[in-house]
């Protein structure tokens, strides 16, 4: 009895893998926006006196913005390009599904966190 997740190259597997990759790519944009917002918002809530100084070009908020934007952007690019490349190379393999699951879990984790913080 074969199922969709078995390592076989058929159109259904391709369709599912690329659909999930597409979803993860779209979510990665949301993760960039939400993740950046969560961190900046949390920083501003803990250190409002410092966050306000950004208006006069002072404080650490600009630096934090850069520091978090970079890894989030790298993550987004990695998901889009690296994820596609990986799926393409290891189509239908357990490692490919596992990578997709992990990426989606990370993305859902950050987005879920953004709902509360």
């Amino acid at each position, binding site marked *: *009895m074969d*199922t*969709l*997740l*078995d390592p076989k190259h058929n159109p259904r597997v391709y369709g599912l893998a690329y659909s999930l990759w597409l979803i993860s790519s779209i979510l990665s944009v949301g993760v960039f926006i939400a993740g950046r917002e969560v961190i900046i918002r*949390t920083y501003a*809530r*803990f250190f*409002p*006196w410092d966050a306000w100084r950004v208006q006069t070009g002072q404080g650490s908020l600009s630096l934090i913005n850069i520091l978090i934007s970079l890894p989030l952007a790298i993550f987004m690019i990695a998901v889009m390009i690296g994820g596609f490349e990986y799926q393409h190379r290891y189509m239908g393999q357990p490692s490919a*599904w*596992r990578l997709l*699951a*992990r990426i*989606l*879990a*990370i993305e*859902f*984790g*950050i987005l*879920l*966190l953004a*709902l*509360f*913080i």
Partner: protein
Amino acid sequence: MRNITTISEKLRPYFSEGVRIILWFFLVAAAVIFIFHGLLSVTYPYSLDYGEAPLIDQAMRMAAGENIYRPDISTPPYTIANYPPLYVISLIPGLNGFDSPYLMGRIISLIAALLSATFIGMILYTFSNDRLSSLVAAFLFLASPYVVQWSGRARIDMLALAFATAALFVFVRWPRSTWAWLGGGLLLVLAAYTRQSYALAAPLAGFVWLWTQNKRRAIALALLVGGLGVALFFLINSLTDGGFYYNIVTANVNEFGWERLGFQLERLWGENWIILLLSLLFLGLGWRSQKSWPLLAPFLVGAFISALTIGKIGSNVNYFLELSAALAMIVGVLFVWSQSNAWRNIAVIFLISIQFGMLFKSSMGENVDWILGTRYNDIDALQLLEQDVKKMPGPILADEYMGMLTMNGRPLYLQPFEVTQLANAGMWDEQPLLDEIAAQNFDGVLIHHFNTWPVHKERWSPAMLAAIDTYYRPVKTLAGTVVYIPKGETTITRAPNPAPSSGNVTGPVWDGQAIPIGEAGFTMDPAIAINPTDPDQLVAIATRYSKQECELPTCKIELAFYDTQDGGQTWTEAATLTRSKQAMYAGLVAFDASGNLNIMGIRQNTIEVNQVSSQEDYPPSVADFVDATSALIGARPWLRVDPQSGEIFLSFGAQEGDMLYVTPSLIHSADGVNWSLISRVDQHISAADISSPRATAPDHIQVLFAEGDNLSLVWTWDSEPWTWPRTIWMANSSDDGVTFGEPAPILETWGPINSASANGQFAIVYRTGTEQTQKLTVAATSDNGRNWTSAIASGDVSLPFDVNTAPGINIAPDGTIDLVFYTHSSSSKDCALDVLSWQMLQPFGRIDPCEYDVFYTYSLDSGLSFAEPLQLNQEPIRGEDLARYAGASQASAALAVASGEEYAYPIWIGTPQLGKTQVYTAKIQR
């Protein structure tokens, strides 16, 4: 079916790993929130909570060899030591070692919270051998908003909880060890001698747990904890002559409120409903399969019963700490239990993640934004407050910030909340304290306000508040705290209660025709003045929007200036005072004795004045307006002209100290161009407190002219934030407003006031009565507030609570007092607000659903008697037709009346057609 099972089997590892990844995000977030909050709390230099300073004070007293458990507090200091001594003792070594006395106490709490989390995790690990479930339980405990909040406070609770959880761990880890019950028992005694309420849940859990392991050890534990606990109690009680019992039992039996309990339980449910449901599941079903049930179920039940005492007045979330520990451990157990089924485990982990999120939301909202955010915003103000406290060498009474004393090594004289509760219960005689307040033995009194909720009424008895009001005066607010200092000598007295209007006053003569001024539009804030040298010349001014629904920048806000040369019969719009892309509003007009016209308006928070002193200057042009001051903040400014000197006076709320304070203030000018420095009354209201909202802004600031260089400033302000009724204050000046004497309270009003002066006579119109039904009353004095008369001016017309529009009042040269006022139409009573709903609407406003009538009355005998009010409008004035700004109806700040020798000209806003307003006046002969 088999296919589904297979797919489920294939998907399971991915979901299982995925949901754990999500959980890790929440665990990390819990750690981040706890650490940041802990660090910011521990390093905060001032008290974070009312209860911190008494514990520091007790440690100071104990270090000095004093008995903190006094059996009798009929003599000062009026302090109570609510808790057993262990935490207080733990503070002593750090009393002199740190800059802030709070630092040591908070570090102890923070470490104790981490220890509690560690013991919770270790208990779980002992039961399950599962690291993740142990971490989940420990971090869920640390994520609790109650734990987050209390772990940064110099309070007893976290240390007590650390002892309790340590004891439970000892019982679980070594259930059959001979010495474990002894060690655990001693830890339970330590917990109970840190906080007495910890003598319930953990001992009960320990006893039931040991009972299931070894009944003899359980009995031994009960004997140890009970015996040692009672023995220590009797020892300490006898050493303190019964003071220990009085302080930790008698003085702790505070009033219980079911409503308070309901509110807190509702909050508990809202923030923890997932783990509460899971715990109920555990409680009901866990006994069959969970070996931890005999420990955790009694702990949960005991903690819940203990938490129910949160219904006591003054209780806080610390009553939920044991419960949080119990819930965290049960969740850990359920986590392990769910692992036997992968999909159940996935569901439980997901639910736990959501629960983490709910706790974060609450913690960030309350602990970070509300508590820490406010406290850190207040640091500059608190530094100033600390300087003020240092300048007061004598005893000071304080509530929230009594820690200002302890942090400067000064003992507390009073714990107002504790003794107020004792006084309310009839267990403490407050008269000696009241006598001391009356004798002004205290250099200052600090009463804190959090917002409009009157917490100070729980902390100070009515008699204490009344005594403070009588013998002290509020001199400033800082960080939500009103600073009172002893009252000095003043000649200003309180006005008496109003008398019914005496005598029969002949009704005014009026043809019944309201005279429209200008065209119907979107006007408000009308003002009117009569030329004393030419009674046929009158001028009026009103703010006008370019559309009914106004909002900048798509709406023009300008001043419409009108005049009449025929005694008010026909009016023309002589000038439109408008500036490109800038609003101009709140116009006022006043003639001096020589017939020179002065016009005031506001442009971008700058008060501008135009003195029209010659025919060439007329009609006025916006180009001729000169900036008078940009110090305006809050209250609407008032323009008045000294009838003797002809000088122009502007009274307003002026900012002081780079927007630190707002003070009732005054500037004056002889030519409308060169203005004096700002002279201030000694009442400084923190601008930050006004916006918090922890203080009321001074309002209706008006100058009244007496003979010579004497003048007075009257205004409304109340130490209770954003509420009604408010106190009317008065301060006198004998040097033409350069300096002012001490402000004194003269009246209390249920609504905005207005005032007028002429020939040395002052008249103030205000509202008396109750929240539901009020009367308009006029208080009058002819000797700068030494003696007053007060009479009801609104006759049989009743006024509901309405603080929108002040009545208009004026005094004619012959001493006749003219009065014009709005009240709700008889058909429009249900729309009236009360204080609470007004407070809630205050930030947003509303579309006014009410209808109004406008009345005129007058007095010929200096305000002793008034004519029966004459209704001026034929059709009701509809609130929903008033102009609106940002969706809220804009009522006029005040009505006005011009008073000539023969005629009075009241001015008001009517609504002649749908969605439009019209300025009206009437020519009334008295």
